[in-house]
């Protein structure tokens, strides 16, 4: 009996691994992938939640390069169209990827305004702590008013994926800019001064969060050295 029990347990574990792989490869919902074995859905969802949490930590420790991010955009393309219907935004491109989610360039369909739309990738599988931190980030930035800090326009949720939209700035990421500035000392110093002013404004507002990194800091070309 014990042998049968162990064999059954191994078979279940292998099945769950295969189902998880299928979800990761196809981007299909767990409920869909587990349709033929609904008794395993609960365990698969639990494993998926843990996996998304570890993935977010891996991303924060070893963020994908910009080039790698572009290849991720292709794999994420299947989940983007839902935004068009449900949120009033049309996604046009992926701007970057951070520890908690992905940032799209999108257009507000009624206002015809370009925005940067940040979405929590783990969606409903994110822990309550991660969801709370995501909302807190939006609230913290929304409370700031500074020429070098983007405005937050809107916050919402699509198919269990929380998102917020921000002012879109087209100067590229700080990481890209610093790559071009390695030998331009004066311009590097001006950029640093601009960043310092923005950070000072955030600290004064007592709401500085862990949002400032080379990959998530974006700049306007017109104010980058003037403010």
């Amino acid at each position, binding site marked *: 009996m014990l042998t049968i029990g162990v064999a059954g347990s191994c078979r279940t574990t292998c099945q769950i691994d295969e189902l998880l792989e299928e979800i990761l*490869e196809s981007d299909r919902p767990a409920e869909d992938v587990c349709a033929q074995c609904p008794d395993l859905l609960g365990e698969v969802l639990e494993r998926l939640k843990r996996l998304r949490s*570890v993935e977010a930590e891996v991303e924060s420790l070893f963020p994908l390069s910009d080039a790698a991010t572009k290849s991720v955009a292709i794999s994420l393309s299947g989940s983007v169209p839902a935004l068009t219907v449900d949120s009033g935004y049309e996604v046009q491109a992926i701007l970057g990827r951070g520890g908690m989610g992905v940032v799209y360039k999108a257009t507000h369909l009624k206002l015809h305004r370009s925005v940067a739309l940040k979405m929590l990738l783990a969606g409903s599988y994110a822990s309550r702590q991660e969801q709370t931190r995501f909302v807190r980030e939006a609230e913290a930035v929304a409370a700031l008013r500074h020429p070098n800090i983007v405005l937050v326009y809107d916050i919402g949720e699509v198919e269990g994926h929380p998102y917020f939209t921000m002012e879109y700035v087209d100067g590229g990421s700080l990481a890209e800019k610093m790559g071009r500035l390695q030998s331009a000392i004066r311009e590097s110093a001006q950029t640093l001064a601009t960043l310092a002013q923005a950070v000072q404004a955030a600290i004064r507002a007592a709401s500085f969060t862990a949002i400032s990194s080379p990959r998530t800091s974006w700049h306007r070309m017109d104010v980058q050295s003037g403010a």
Partner: protein
Amino acid sequence: MLPDEEREVFSLVRIQGMTHAEVADVLGVAEKTVQRRLNRSLMHLTDKLRDLRPAPAPDKAV
């Protein structure tokens, strides 16, 4: 901690910053294989780290 093939891909993509296409070219495998090994590395890491990350308490309604 990870099987060789998974560790190799994880290192090239996550630490060296190579694209999936570049890694596929270097290793002589399909891009889909690269993605599959990355997914498996993540699954392995999740299992290995389980002891360090006990299941969170069920969410309570606020």
